[in-house]
């Protein structure tokens, strides 16, 4: 049973990577260990609709932060759900050095981006979309910061 919300230090650890698994990545199948590589689409939806943080699961504050790749920033479409700025920065602090795809990212890239915004649109995938995941489009962007 996975209680939420959970503060950052209490997040379960990914067995393979040894890093904390954010709320949006779920807790793995019955019996399976938690994994920080893929996003759990139910949790992503829940974050979007209940307006809770994808890292710790508690209510969003302001500003709302999105953590993603430079390409996601360019397209203004993020896959990782909205988070507290503090949570996003802490997550980044842990994952900046991790190799391979994590937190739902599929392609490698140089530097993470943290974008902050006042609000966002939740966009579900269309049938013709190759990428079957929902995305988030910030609609009142405050700042997009590259963190290498």
């Amino acid at each position, binding site marked *: 049973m996975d209680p939420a919300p959970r*503060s950052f230090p209490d997040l379960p650890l990914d067995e393979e990577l040894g890093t904390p698994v954010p709320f949006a990545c779920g807790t793995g199948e019955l019996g399976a260990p938690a994994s920080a590589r893929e996003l759990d689409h139910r949790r992503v939806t829940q974050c979007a609709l209940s307006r809770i943080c994808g890292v710790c699961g508690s209510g969003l*504050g*302001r*500003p709302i932060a999105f953590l993603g790749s430079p390409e996601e920033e360019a397209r203004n479409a993020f896959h990782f759900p909205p988070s*507290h*700025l*503090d949570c996003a920065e802490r997550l980044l602090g842990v994952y900046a050095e991790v190799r391979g795809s994590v937190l739902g990212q599929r392609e490698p890239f140089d530097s993470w981006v943290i974008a902050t915004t*006042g609000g966002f649109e939740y966009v579900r995938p269309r049938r013709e979309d190759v990428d079957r995941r929902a995305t988030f489009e910030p609609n*009142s962007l*405050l700042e997009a910061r590259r963190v290498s």
Partner: protein
Amino acid sequence: MAVSTIIPWERVRTVGSRLTTPLHPDDYLSLVNPLWSARELRGRVEEVIPETDDAATLVIRPGWGWRYNHSPGQYVGIGVQVEGRFQWRSYSISSPPKRNGRTIAITVRAMPEGLLSSHLVKGLAPGTIVRLASPEGDFVLPDPPPAKILFLVAGSGITPVMAMLRTLDRRGSMPDVVMHYSSPNAERMIFREELDALSEKHEGLTLHKLHTDTDGMLDFADLDDFCPDWREREVWACGPSGMLDAATEHWKDADLEDQLHLERFSLEVGGEAEGGTVTFQTSGKKAEADGATTILEAGESVGIGMPYGCRMGICHTCTLTLVKGAIKDLRNGEEYNQPNEQVQTCVTAAMGDCTFDI
């Protein structure tokens, strides 16, 4: 009863909130006069004074909750509603801190690609209500000032330094100041008349102007030409990032990094407080916190449902009452130690033992 009582406004408003719950009395008061609310800092634009073609000074009258104690060189966040949306930027405050003044002044230069700055310079009508974020910034002149100062400014970077110069002038404490000011041309040089007047008035103030359109940009190798004793001066620099990067390198090479103070707009949590025991009086819980742990984090670590919003000191959702003790703002070192003072918890840390009303 011959006891004079000052009505504690905070208390009145707390009691008032029982009438307005779940809203706050400010939510009603602000409908009458927008400035009557401390829930979100606000101000009214009183005057827009054009300085040059593309720069203007905004005189703003802040509403409740504003503390008139900014240090010269600090900056304030301004939020303006453009087409329904609030846009935020930071601008340096160009007015010196005044005890009885009720307004602050910020000087803005319109950037051609800058959505908000153009709007502020050309489109903002007096009477407009803007949102404000408390002054912050580590670009601050100490009091008393150092004996020898070098100001390196370019373009709108003059603004925080202008506040500093005006303060030094008003306090009569102008030391030996060399100022180097770059601007594309004479017409676009803001405050040029005032600067000329100041340098006339003060023996110690030497002004160097550079018009980059005609004479190119400042090369730090030429520093010795107009300021041979630059190594002995405390330096404040504000301008485009290219210039600041070059300055940082130059001072680093000379091993004098500590003397260079740059204008930064990000939130760096610097400085440490001492730490101590934080007591949360309603639940009786206590947390041992060190000087780098914020009160918010301390409360969360012992399971208190601390309110929070942006967690970086802008939105004031985390504000609680400091019953007793002292805390320090990690961004600018400011101390809070008045009993029953309203303080933000997300950017402050304990300085000794303290107690909070939650």
